[in-house]
């Protein structure tokens, strides 16, 4: 019989592998092509000066790759989930802003050629949601009744004559 905790454990694993896998795939699609393509995608958002566009285009795919691999491996979960959530929040905010302005630019998520659309927003929104859940889980500690708690209960219930 599969108990509830096992289902939850599998669900967490699926979310972690999905977010990690997408980040690794996104990094790979950028690293296999000339970095200038990603630079052109970043520049289209009109949020960075050109020197920063170049810097981000050359480094961000490596950050995505590292964070994705850490998530896939399930290591350094607090750092990797915070980094993934920060990256995805940034991407999602910029995409929503650009879509709301009707700029009609490429999202640059997986290389050139994919315009920002409700589908890309839904996809990135779901990823962000998953990443935020993973972050919350990484920092959440279940309360367990420790020895001091048991002692308190015992003391409060003991009434010497």
């Amino acid at each position, binding site marked *: 019989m599969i108990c509830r905790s096992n289902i939850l454990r599998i669900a967490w694993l699926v979310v972690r592998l999905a977010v990690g896998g997408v980040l690794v795939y996104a990094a790979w699609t950028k690293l296999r092509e000339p970095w*200038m393509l990603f630079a*052109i995608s970043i*520049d*289209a958002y009109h949020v960075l000066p*050109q020197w920063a566009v170049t810097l981000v285009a050359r480094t961000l795919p490596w950050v995505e790759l590292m964070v994705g691999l850490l998530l896939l491996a399930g290591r350094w979960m607090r750092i990797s989930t915070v980094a993934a959530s920060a990256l995805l929040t940034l991407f999602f905010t910029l995409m929503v802003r650009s879509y709301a302005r009707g700029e*009609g630019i490429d999202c640059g998520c997986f290389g*050139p050629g994919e*315009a920002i659309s409700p589908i890309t927003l839904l996809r990135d929104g779901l990823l962000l949601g998953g990443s935020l859940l993973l972050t919350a889980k990484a920092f959440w500690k279940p309360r367990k009744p420790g020895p001091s708690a048991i002692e308190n209960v015992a003391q409060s219930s003991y009434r010497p004559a």
Partner: protein
Amino acid sequence: MALCLAAPSRIDTAKTVGNPAAPVTIELFSDFQCPACRGLHMSLLPSIMRDYVATGKAYLVYKEFPLMQHTHAREAATYAVAAARVGKYEQVADALFQNQQHWEADGKVFETVATALTPAEQKKVQALVKDPGVLNEVAQDVQEGLEQSVNQTPTLMIIRGTKKYPLAGVPNYSLLQALLNDLSK
């Protein structure tokens, strides 16, 4: 028989500029009624022509991609393709982009096209716009764009070997230069 995967499936040589053997091919999917296409045509294209097409590093191919929401765009594209048959594609394209606001407002596309043609050419072009071959060429360009996932204009399809890189919008020229320099090595 050798099959060159890099070669676009169909090229109207009257709508091309430069050396077909250039290391990079740039297919420009454009809509004559689109303001961003006008911006690219007026600001970026002369630099691409000067630095890459004239120097033999890139081969430029014009492709029509009139958008549905632009009511006169298909008519303008048809006139441009007809003008290509009399060797005046670029001149007509220049006229259409320069006077975009006028013919867009009054719908008098041919009046703008005529400014780039001699009276004899005007007659030929007016006959050619009814030619099924011309109409079909516009439709084929659109179909090619759709097959290559072109979904907005302008889109620069940068082709090197078997690789195709679609760049939507008007890219920053210095970044585009970096890309073209890298690909044309």
